[in-house]
């Protein structure tokens, strides 16, 4: 009986020790071989305005950043970023400054959208297309736009069956606009690296 228990305990202890050892090994290896994401993609992504509007023909800002870095896409396809953004990208990547490609759209002043609430039928179609979840509402309930979250990507406008979404100039608030967030993030990162 005692021998049996001893054997059992030995098996348990050795298996636990083995798995523990392997666990520690994996932790060590994962620390030692830690991979940071492609730093250039992150930097390009930080310059892009994060409107997630898709006017560049990519599903969002990050995919466009990846396409730029891999040389797949030119830097002049981002209307919300405008000429300023193209200049920054060119500086970062040591490329020539290009004119904004008119096929992707024209540069406009900073704006957001608003739902004309009496007209809203509560179809939730705009909620589904919003890339930043800036529209709140439920089926057959009136929807509204959270202005602080709206990036002005206009993707909800064609989705609305009753055309009750209108563009308005971005309100000046004390909060940082989403379009400026990358810039703010860089500032914060710079401050942290001090």
């Amino acid at each position: 009986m005692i021998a049996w228990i001893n054997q059992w305990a030995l098996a348990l202890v050795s298996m636990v020790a083995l798995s523990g050892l392997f666990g520690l090994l994996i932790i060590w290896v994962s620390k030692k071989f830690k991979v940071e994401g492609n730093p250039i993609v992150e930097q390009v992504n930080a310059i892009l305005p994060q409107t997630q509007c898709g006017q560049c023909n990519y599903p969002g800002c990050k995919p466009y950043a990846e396409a730029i870095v891999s040389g797949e896409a030119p830097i002049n396809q981002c209307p919300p970023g405008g000429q300023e953004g193209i200049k920054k990208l060119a500086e970062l990547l040591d490329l020539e400054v290009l004119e904004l490609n008119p096929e992707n759209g024209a540069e406009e002043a900073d704006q957001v959208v608003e739902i004309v609430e009496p007209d809203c039928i509560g179809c939730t179609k705009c909620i589904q297309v919003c890339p930043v979840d800036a529209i709140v509402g439920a089926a057959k309930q009136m929807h509204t736009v959270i202005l602080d979250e709206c990036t002005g990507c206009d993707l909800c406008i064609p989705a609305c069956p009753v055309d009750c979404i209108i563009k308005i100039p971005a309100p000046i608030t004390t909060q940082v606009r989403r379009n400026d967030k990358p810039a703010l993030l860089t500032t914060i990162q710079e401050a942290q690296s001090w």
Partner: protein
Amino acid sequence: MTTLFLIFISAAFVNNFVLVRFLGLCPFMGVSTQYKSALGMSFATAFVLTMSSIASYLVNEYLLVPLGLEYLKTLSFILVIAVTVQITEMILHKSSPLLYQVLGLFLPLITTNCAVLGVALLNVQQQNSLIESAFFGFGAAVGFGVVLVLFSAIRERLEMADVPASFRGLPIALMTAGLMSLAFMGFSGMAQ
């Protein structure tokens, strides 16, 4: 040297893991629809099989046998294989991003490839030494890779072929695998 060569040939062709021993059929069916991914899977498997047969030999020889715990080998080999795959993936990700892009997707899949566990267990059963284990593992991987690549090439052609409706897809693939298995029977008896 001759013994090592024989072990290699035996594992790769005569006792091919997929077509003779019927191990690792899951990736054989799953990753063989495209030639390119089959190639990636083959290389990843070759790497992991060799590494894990060495690692499981060490665990068996220096932990399980001295403690008289051989009956726990299945359990501990699964652990060893999972850890080997995980570490391989992490090191590869850091040191060779290009290779990682080719193999990366397939590496986690290999953890559950029963050929890998089969190699580790057969190594113990045949009482192979460390070098022999490594060769056995590598041979098994080469056999697996050759068969997988051949099969994927056939399957790419099958996509174009005019197959009767009821046989389209997996059924015709399984039949093809059966025919290939018959062909590989031709190697039987050439080596133990």
